[in-house]
């Protein structure tokens, strides 16, 4: 089954960040090992003379060429809808894509999205022809409002960015899945372990976006492979249909005619 992002069908359900790796070469190898076809990146105010941006951009272009991948620029660091729109327009020009990972930070301590600016920015970006992938909290109503505005992809957090705390509120995430059955739901931020990603996929999430959990692993390339396997396992489990939990024990082995049954 393919991941559907605004009509683009992708084999991998893992979207991967390009930051925090020990080196550009490790980044490249980890992204390729992950099988991901969507790479997130950003823009920063800097002088072209510094050359750092050009080198990273060349690495990322090499990876997308090798993986037939897609770029997903983000609006990291923006706090207002106006900042978001300016950055998104610049990203579209440089990266030649209408996709934009919408981030509007409302609190510097936990990097929690500002829901008011988020909705405002989403509305403006959609009017400008962007295909918006908003990063939001696990608030059902905000997710619903984003979907109603025209965001076909919604990306609630598992927990605050970079914490690795995993799914802080599984109930909220399950509720969002149940209430928005037609949205493409991608769990974004806070994933720490492959089992976190697997759990979200078992809930029926469509994909996982992560960065730190792979980039900060002792062996990012091996961790990228682990996440790819966990996401596949979670998806297969969801499709296979997970058994309902029961309150009491039920023997797996048939008890009728078992030896010594009469002795109990």
């Amino acid at each position: 089954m393919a991941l559907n992002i605004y009509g683009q069908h992708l084999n991998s359900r893992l979207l991967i960040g390009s930051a925090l790796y020990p080196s550009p070469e490790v980044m490249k190898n980890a992204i390729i090992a992950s099988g991901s076809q969507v790479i997130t990146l950003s823009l920063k105010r800097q002088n072209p003379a510094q050359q750092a941006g050009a080198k990273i951009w060349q690495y990322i272009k090499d990876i997308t060429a090798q993986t037939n991948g897609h770029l997903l620029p983000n609006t990291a660091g923006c706090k207002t809808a106006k900042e978001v729109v300016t950055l998104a327009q610049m990203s579209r020009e440089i990266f030649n894509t209408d996709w934009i990972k919408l981030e509007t930070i409302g609190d510097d301590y936990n990097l929690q999205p500002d829901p008011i600016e988020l909705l405002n920015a989403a509305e403006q970006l959609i009017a400008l022809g962007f295909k918006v992938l908003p990063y939001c909290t696990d608030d059902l109503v905000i997710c619903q409002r984003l979907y109603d505005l025209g965001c076909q992809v919604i990306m609630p957090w598992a927990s605050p960015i970079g914490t690795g705390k995993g799914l802080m509120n599984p109930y909220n995430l399950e509720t969002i899945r149940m209430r928005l059955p037609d949205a493409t739901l991608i769990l974004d931020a806070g994933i720490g372990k492959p089992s976190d990603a697997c759990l979200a996929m078992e809930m029926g999430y469509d994909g996982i976006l992560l960065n730190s959990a792979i980039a900060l692993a002792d062996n990012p390339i091996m961790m990228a492979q682990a996440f790819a396997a966990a996401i596949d396992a979670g998806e297969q489990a969801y499709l296979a249909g997970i058994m309902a939990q029961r309150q009491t024990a039920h023997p797996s082995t048939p008890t009728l005619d078992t030896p010594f049954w009469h002795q109990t």
Partner: protein
Amino acid sequence: MNIKINGEETKLPCDKPTVADALQWHLSALERKQSFAVAVNSSFIAKDNYTTTPLASNDCVDIFLPIQGG
């Protein structure tokens, strides 16, 4: 005319400069070939409009380049 480019005070040697003039003054030919985007006073200026977008005194020109992101 004095403007700011990436936060630094810059004196342009012309009276009615455009964004293209500022980039020509500030960047080498090699640097101008890199992938970058421009905002003036926090508003996006498309590449096609560099030569037709005038700058005023104390305008802030910001140049953005790709970086890693999550």
